[in-house]
């Protein structure tokens, strides 16, 4: 039985989970750092307890503090969301040992999937295809380098070195030629050791032109492990997804069935419970290979919810309460696309931006879902991830979904903080996106010198005119939060070629 859920997270995913709990009739507890005291998720919770401490480590990552708040508030379950403590096996174990229901898989499953080499071996044993490559178990530097050198001849070039404890591109090196191998290996090991306290790396053949395709799985305690079809998330910048969709435009029924079976086998191999995602590389020839498993809810889960009609977070709550899942057979309907709205300057290599959300007007109308943790008047600070919102559209077909996304992005107004809105809007017009032939290198391929907005001259001129009228007429819609002029000055103008005189 679960009756009161502590959400050990913040921002949009905390809002998502708190609303799901509210709808399920469960009481909720939010925990928040002092700089989140006026954030939306704090308002949505029945109770909210402030975490003492300054840094993320002292607040959202402080396991014992969160556990003691759970105990004091009488929470009988903890939902970790994504990021933060969501994939910390030690936390899952401590929560369970405290007699509190962990909303996620067992600590054991998290551990097996968290160590990428163990995951590869487990998957291979379960008959799930992995990228051709070799694990290097040696921890001693000299022994490891020798083993890497030997393995490289069997794996072949180009190849990838990856940290076993890695993630997000850290401890990763692409190696084109044998003579680059040793330097790359030393660098990857050094970086991995520094970042994760574990220098172990493994080798994988480098597969170019592939798609990132992942399968959503759900498993309950009543013997049911199912998959909810795939998402394609090939469009990435700096190893971070920005544009996600379901289904994958080039998917066939055969590949979906095979990939789904592999994902279910992967989950069953670690006695998985709850919601998880098995990530694959899908090569142009239809071959696919296990990449890793995320043992938590994912940022892009809404696209699957929209095409399958399954409320994944609600199912997580059901499964954690020991109930059987409520969803029936897989039935994919229409097409869903998600874009991530980041506070960042896409024209400056996606540099994070901060500032007030002086105006924040999301688009409206049918087929649009917005998952966000912010509202007009909030301040974007450098303390956390710069994702402001996820804009998700659904339509009967992929072409209509893209049309809807264009319309929605055109309607979306965010002022006071630089965002990637225009970058997302232009993505919708990229031929590869229109054709569904995206792969993981698309952004680098399209904009090798970096992206810059294409702004028609007449639009620029109208904007300058508007600003001049605003100044003349005193239309000072200042933000609540930043009365102090110089403290809230945003980043500099995003456009590149302004050198005119009016009229």
């Amino acid at each position: 039985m679960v009756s009161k859920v502590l959400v050990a997270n913040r921002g949009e995913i905390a809002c998502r989970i708190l609303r799901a709990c509210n709808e399920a009739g469960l009481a909720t507890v939010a925990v928040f750092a002092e700089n989140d005291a006026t954030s939306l998720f704090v308002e949505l919770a029945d109770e909210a307890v402030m975490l003492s401490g300054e840094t993320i480590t002292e607040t959202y990552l402080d396991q014992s503090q969160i556990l003691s708040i759970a105990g004091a508030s009488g929470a009988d379950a903890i939902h970790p969301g994504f990021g933060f403590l969501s994939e910390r096996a030690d936390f899952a174990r401590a929560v369970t040992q405290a007699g509190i229901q962990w909303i996620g898989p067992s600590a054991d499953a998290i551990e097996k999937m968290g160590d990428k080499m163990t995951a590869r071996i487990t998957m291979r044993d379960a008959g799930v295809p992995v990228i051709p490559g070799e694990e290097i178990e040696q921890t001693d530097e000299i022994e490891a380098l020798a083993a890497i050198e030997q393995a490289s001849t069997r794996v072949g070039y180009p190849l990838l070195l990856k940290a076993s404890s890695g993630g997000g591109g850290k401890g990763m090196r692409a190696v084109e030629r044998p003579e680059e191998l040793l330097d790359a290996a030393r660098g990857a090991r050094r970086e991995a050791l520094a970042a994760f306290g574990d220098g172990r790396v493994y080798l994988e053949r480098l597969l170019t032109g592939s798609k990132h395709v992942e399968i959503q799985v759900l498993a309950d305690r009543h013997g049911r492990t199912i998959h909810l079809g795939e998402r394609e998330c090939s469009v990435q910048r700096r190893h971070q997804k920005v544009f996600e969709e379901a289904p994958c435009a080039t998917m066939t029924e055969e590949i979906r069935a095979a990939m789904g079976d592999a994902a279910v086998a992967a989950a069953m191999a670690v006695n998985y419970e709850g919601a998880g995602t098995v990530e694959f590389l899908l090569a142009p020839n239809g071959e696919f290979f296990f990449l890793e498993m995320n043992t938590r809810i994912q940022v892009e889960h809404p696209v699957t919810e929209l095409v399958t009609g399954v409320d994944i977070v609600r199912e997580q709550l059901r499964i954690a309460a020991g109930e059987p899942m409520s969803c029936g057979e897989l039935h994919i309907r229409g097409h869903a696309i998600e874009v991530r709205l980041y506070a960042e300057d896409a024209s400056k290599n996606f540099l994070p931006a901060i500032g007030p959300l002086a105006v924040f007007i999301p688009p409206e109308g049918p087929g649009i879902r917005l998952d966000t943790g912010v509202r007009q008047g909030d301040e974007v600070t450098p303390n956390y991830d710069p994702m402001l919102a996820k804009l998700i559209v659904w339509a009967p077909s992929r072409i209509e979904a893209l049309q809807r996304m264009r319309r929605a992005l055109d309607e979306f107004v965010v002022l006071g903080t630089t965002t990637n809105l225009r970058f997302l809007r232009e993505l919708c017009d990229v031929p590869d996106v229109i054709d569904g032939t995206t792969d993981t290198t698309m952004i680098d391929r399209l904009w090798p010198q970096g992206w810059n907005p294409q702004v028609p001259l007449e639009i620029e001129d109208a904007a300058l005119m508007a600003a001049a009228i605003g100044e003349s007429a005193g239309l000072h819609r200042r933000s609540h939060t930043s009365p102090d002029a110089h403290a809230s000055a945003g980043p500099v103008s995003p456009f590149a070629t302004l050198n005119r005189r009016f009229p």
Partner: protein
Amino acid sequence: MEHQFSGPDGPIDVTVEKRGDEWLLGGRKATIERDGRLKVHLANGEVGYATLAKVGDHWWVHFAGHTFNLERIEPGASQSGNDGGLTAPMPGKVLEVLVDVGQTVESGQTLMVLEAMKMEHRILAATPGTVTEVFFASGDQVQQGSVLLAKTEPED
């Protein structure tokens, strides 16, 4: 009415004219809506609505799916604050302030050290002068574009 905004290649002068309820610029005209939005008639006959917000000296404008951040130059204001390199290149934290108000500095002298995106950035004086204001202290968070210090410019 004339206003100046900063562009990448120098200031842009914009002169708008008001006739009755209408504002004019070139072949464009605009009226202010009840909700503070601007209805803009473009020279080509198309109509759009601009949403505006002023944050500090910056006018933010959303128009036709594009977002602009236009820094207004106060009439008579010195441009050194922006062009002299005394602004934060990205969001970050002030690690150290190396000068005081009233202090004379040489060209190239380090005035402040920032930490941003896990790297250190040094704010240098582009020209010799005297520090007239220091807006942040060690430990403060700064935003991209924030003016960090002010100093006098060399006389011509």
